[in-house]
């Protein structure tokens, strides 16, 4: 135990002496937490629309002002022909082109039906399909306005209608930040803990100081624990600051118990740091450790369900996702913070995370050899 105390003192001294490392550990994550959630927004708005109005009737005027006031579209240009409007799409100045053909108003009333043309830039699939869906909704609304003006009311009521009453639980205002901030906080803790732990032992190898440790009577587990505990404390500290930012900047107050959150965090950090140390014991130099860590952490982040839901993945990808410790923490974080899930709701995740922690650290201790 006394040895461990000395090891800890050494580690802390090394960390706090490194002036350029400190801002990376403490300040960089916080800045990212302040900026990223504002940017990571899937809520599609401000769709740039180019309009080709070949009719110039009162109906087209009404339609255009209705589109403008819907709040989703920004009309970026009126062009006489479709070809010219397509030029705006090529320059990325328009996402969708709406073509209102000649005699739009006359045909709609006389013939009872009229086509309009939409062309959407579909390179970004979500934007293309959501944008055209919004525009279609506006058109349908406009259509029923016209219809009510021309058709007697009793005829409309004859149709059977099903009213759909949606109710949004856990996040009634559909605030995307409520969803992203907890997830991004998990990623930031993961980046700090994972990378720094991965670089740590290998640095001693590269610089040569590991030899000095190897010839002392320090036991393997003491050495690993001495590396693990400081980063565990740093990770918890960063997490706490992050929670405060979430509380005071984004107004996110965890619905569930903080105690449950911290319980899970402490297990998660042990698992994550074990992973970092494992990479470190396998690597020969810092660049290698960093690249290996980057490789895995990148996969962890992409597969964790931070940006895209795990449910949408094919089976093999779901299995990979289940094999990464980050997935469970993002899950649990969102459950506790947004839904107020309690200990009994997350016991499955806790068991798995404990398994990760024991397995990864056991492997790291096993793989750390005191002889070359």
């Amino acid at each position, binding site marked *: 135990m006394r040895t461990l105390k000395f090891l800890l003192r050494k580690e802390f001294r090394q960390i706090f002496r490194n002036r350029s490392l400190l801002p990376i550990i403490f300040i960089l994550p916080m800045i990212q937490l302040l900026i990223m959630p504002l940017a990571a927004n899937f809520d599609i708005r401000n769709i740039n629309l180019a309009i080709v109005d070949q009719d110039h009737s009162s109906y087209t005027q009404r339609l255009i002002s209705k589109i403008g006031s819907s709040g989703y579209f920004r009309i970026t240009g009126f062009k006489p022909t479709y070809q010219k409007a397509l030029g705006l799409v090529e320059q990325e100045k328009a996402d969708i082109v709406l073509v209102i053909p000649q005699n739009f108003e006359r045909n709609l009333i006389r013939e009872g039906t009229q086509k309009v043309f939409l062309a959407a830039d579909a*390179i970004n699939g979500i934007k293309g399909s959501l944008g055209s869906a919004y525009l279609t909704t506006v058109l349908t609304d406009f259509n029923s306005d016209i219809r009510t003006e021309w058709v007697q009311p009793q005829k409309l009521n004859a149709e*059977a209608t099903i009213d759909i009453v949606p109710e949004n639980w856990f996040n009634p205002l559909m605030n995307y930040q*409520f969803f992203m901030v907890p997830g991004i906080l998990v990623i930031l803790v993961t980046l700090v803990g994972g990378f720094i732990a991965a670089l740590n032992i290998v640095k001693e190898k590269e610089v040569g100081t590991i030899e000095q440790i190897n010839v002392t009577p320090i036991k393997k587990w003491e050495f690993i624990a001495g590396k693990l505990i400081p980063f565990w404390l740093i990770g918890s500290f960063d997490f706490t600051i992050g929670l405060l930012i979430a509380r005071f900047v984004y107004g996110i107050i965890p619905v569930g118990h903080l105690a449950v959150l911290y319980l899970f965090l402490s297990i998660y950090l042990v698992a994550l740091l074990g992973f970092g140390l494992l990479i470190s014991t396998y690597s020969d130099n810092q660049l290698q450790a960093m690249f290996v860590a980057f490789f895995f952490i990148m996969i962890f982040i992409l597969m964790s369900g931070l940006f*895209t839901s795990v449910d949408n993945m094919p089976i093999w990808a779901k299995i990979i996702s289940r094999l990464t410790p980050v997935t469970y923490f993002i899950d649990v974080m969102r459950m506790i913070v947004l839904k107020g899930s309690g200990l009994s709701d997350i016991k499955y995740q806790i068991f798995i995370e404990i398994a990760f922690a024991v397995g990864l650290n056991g492997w790291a201790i096993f793989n750390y050899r005191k002889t070359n």
Partner: protein
Amino acid sequence: MNQFGVFVQKEFYHVFRDKRTLLILFGLPIVQIILFGFALTTELKNAKLVVVDYAKDIASGQITARIAASPYFSIEKSVLSNEEMNIAFRRGEVKCALIFPSRFNEDLLHLNKAQVQIILDASDPNTAKTIANYLQSIIGDYQRKLNAGSSEPYKIEPELRMLYNPEMNGSMNFIPGVIALVLMIVCTTLTSVSIVKEKEMGTMEVLLVSPFKPIYVILSKAIPYLGLSLLNFIIILLLGVFLLDVPVRGNIVLLFAESTLFIISCLSFGLLISSFTDSQQTAMLISMMGMMLPTIIFTGFLFPIENMPLPLQIISNVIPSKWYYTIVKAIMLKGLGFQSIWKETLVLAAMTGVLLTVSLKRFKTRLA
């Protein structure tokens, strides 16, 4: 010139000696392509839905059958009490509940009006919105079939065309994104580390006192990484074209020229990082940990930049990968020529110029 060749050779030895790093260097883009191409999608599939049916009549049964038949939903359990439903939501076992009130069919037939309730797990607002949209369209279809007799007068029919990507191939959007992301991270890290390493190990001193000019020291470091990055670019491009059916519609020579420009700008950025760090650890943490999220987010391939608040839109302009992404999209997917992207190219070239000048100015030929 011979001297220069020897130095380039030295750098190549450094690179090829470390097999594991090399493996990651080329494994990284391959894994990313596979994940982005086959695993990551915002398209809704198998969303877990629970139906609470108090009516148990024909109409509710038919709607449930339609929902079960769609690929978007998988129906979990069928009967739930309120209490059970709460727990299922809290544990994340279901994303949505559809509730039919009793006498659903009767209301529909006699009053011409009936209600269904949808409860959504809005902790993920985007999925919640998509689920609501799909359910609405399924129920709307059913309603239209019910009213098949009466026709709708004065109908506007929108005719939709999806430009550049009619099959809605999701890979289209991210292949340029992955190229930008991988090149940015890999080039920046490699250059900054390789220079800082010489400082840390003390070998920089040796290089600087040799008759070899400092500028050549830097150049000889840049050339191997330029080569490796171009190779990486080719691999991603080939995977994209042959594995994911992403077309290259424009001029391939132009694409390579622009990519080389982008790689040079990343290398200069790495050089800049190396000029104000003195340990490998710091250089790596800045170029990887610091750059990863900003590059993912500000390149614009995951989150549209127009959605961001104005200050962030302005910030995104200083990220070189954003400009490169626009260029690659224009050449590869839209098949446009140089006249449509000269502005972006100019911005990228100007950035490269500034980065290069600043970092060369800061590059110290004397060690403190």
